[in-house]
């Protein structure tokens, strides 16, 4: 089903039924029903994911790829089966899917295993001013270690990527363009096709941080034509501790290993070793077996709901949120009109940490702080902001409760 084929009214999920799948949502906090609005940080888990992890430990627990007995074979089948589900989700061959601990490790893997061997003085790495620290600090370290220069694409006054500036920042010296696909602060989807075209003109590689985009809409690596794509399981209903690095197979083949140890080798003697095939070359040590299986269950859940329906529903929630949040006196909304599911705002005269504390008293969980994106806060000229981010189980009523909470907080803090 394409997004256009999803009728606006039809696409409304049966949220009440769906919420029953998420045990953590059925609780009260400070005497009020929990309103969980920190989904950009991590999502809650459906019972099917919790069960998949638990069933693995109860029934199939063994190490993968080496045990020659029934449990080991089951564990290997389930683990590699999860890789297959990830591959299908993003339209990639299985051998291009590396399980990591999360987006952060995925990006570090590229910054080390590719960056340390392919960058040098005179080379440039290009990022953007709206990166999460996970796609900023690894490149700062790579630049420091290799003598390469780190440059960034600035933002416009509307908190969008400055495409005009991108044309001058990306140039002959650019070797890597690493950017966030959908921003965890502004909720906007960046024009990655245009940026990728600019990178291709100068022969640079493209890495996409898909930590927020993969949970929100269909991400297809063939369509995107990116070289690397990184995302986390726990932001899309899966367990913590597992993430994905997609890399074009020919790049992964050519790259040096990241971590050395068991599993990633082909043969080892006391002086040297040869490497296993991709993707296992990059999975040193006992992998995240239970977590990967849990991520597989999360992908099954999302596919069953329908990822295009997820996108459409988040759009509807976002339209509603924009309307009700804008109506609260004193609210400054930093999320541009094209942004969705992630709403960044401040309430006049109330520091976001106080606001988060007051909302918590009403059972409403929002994020306050710099959201691991200090350069983006510097762009806004604020030290901290509040953020409400939505996922498939959030309701229109919950957004109304947030708005009411903001009004209460204003009255409360004025004494």
């Amino acid at each position, binding site marked *: 089903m394409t997004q256009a084929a999803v009728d606006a009214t039809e696409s409304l999920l049966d949220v009440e039924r769906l919420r029953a799948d998420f045990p953590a949502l059925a609780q009260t906090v400070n005497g009020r029903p929990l309103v969980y609005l920190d989904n950009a940080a991590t999502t809650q888990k459906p019972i099917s994911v919790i069960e998949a992890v638990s069933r693995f430990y109860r029934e199939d627990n063994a190490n993968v790829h080496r045990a020659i007995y029934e449990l080991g074979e089951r564990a290997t089948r389930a683990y590699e089966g999860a890789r297959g589900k990830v591959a299908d989700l993003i339209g990639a061959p299985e051998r291009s899917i590396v399980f990591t601990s999360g987006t952060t490790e995925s990006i570090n893997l590229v910054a080390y295993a590719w960056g340390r061997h392919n960058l040098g003085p005179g080379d440039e790495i290009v990022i953007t001013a709206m990166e999460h620290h996970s796609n900023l600090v690894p490149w700062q370290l790579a630049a420091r270690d290799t003598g390469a220069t780190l440059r960034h694409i600035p933002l416009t006054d509307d908190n969008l990527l400055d495409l005009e500036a991108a044309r001058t920042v990306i140039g002959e010296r650019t070797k890597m363009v690493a950017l966030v696909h959908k921003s965890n602060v502004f909720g906007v989807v960046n024009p990655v096709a245009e940026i990728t075209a600019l990178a291709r003109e100068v022969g640079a590689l493209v890495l996409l941080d898909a930590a927020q985009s993969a949970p929100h809409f269909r991400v297809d690596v063939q369509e995107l034509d990116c070289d690397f794509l990184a995302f986390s399981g726990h932001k899309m209903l899966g367990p913590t501790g597992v993430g994905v690095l997609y890399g074009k197979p020919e790049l992964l083949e050519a790259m040096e290993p990241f971590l050395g140890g068991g599993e990633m080798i082909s043969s080892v003697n006391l002086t040297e070793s040869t490497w296993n095939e991709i993707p296992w070359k990059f999975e040193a040590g006992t992998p995240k077996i239970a977590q990967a299986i849990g991520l597989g269950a999360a992908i099954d859940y999302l596919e069953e709901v329908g990822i295009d329906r997820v996108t459409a529903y988040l759009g509807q929630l976002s339209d509603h949120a924009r309307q009700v949040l804008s109506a609260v006196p004193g609210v400054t909304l930093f999320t541009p009109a094209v942004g969705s599911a992630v709403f960044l705002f401040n309430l006049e*005269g109330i*520091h*976001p*940490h106080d606001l988060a504390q*007051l909302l918590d008293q009403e059972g409403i969980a929002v994020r306050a702080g710099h959201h691991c994106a200090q350069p983006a*806060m510097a762009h806004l000229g604020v*030290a901290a902001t509040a953020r409400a981010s939505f996922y498939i189980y959030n309701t229109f009523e919950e957004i109304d409760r947030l708005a009411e909470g903001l009004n209460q907080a204003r009255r*409360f803090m004025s*004494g």
Partner: protein
Amino acid sequence: MTELRDLYQQLILDHNQHPRNFGVLEGADLMARGNNPLCGDQLDLYVALEDDSIKDIRFEGSGCAIFKSSTSIMTTVVKGKTRGEALEIFERFHRLATTGEVDSAEMVKLAALASVYKYPVRVKCALLAWRTLETALQEQGEIVSTE
């Protein structure tokens, strides 16, 4: 939200909205900087001494209501005190902020922050000003953090 009135008492809201001794102190003898980077609380604290007493104290900074009001109240409490007296009040305030124990009548204003111990993540907001004052008075010169 009314349950939070113990943390956000009227005196706290008042000092948050109208911080006392706010602004740069020209000709300060001591200056120290506080910074809780995870929170974003930032403080520049200026102290003018006369002999061993705090003749004047002012601050600039930004942060949450607990941080701002705690800093503002501190400036009103320590003005006129000797270094030793100020550090001794800090010791008692530290006990108050971490246990809720108010141990002298002199602590009346500071007692407005006595509930902060019930909110462990906010204790660092209340303590930043005092730690920064301690550093200023001991002329240690490093940037203070209570995170």
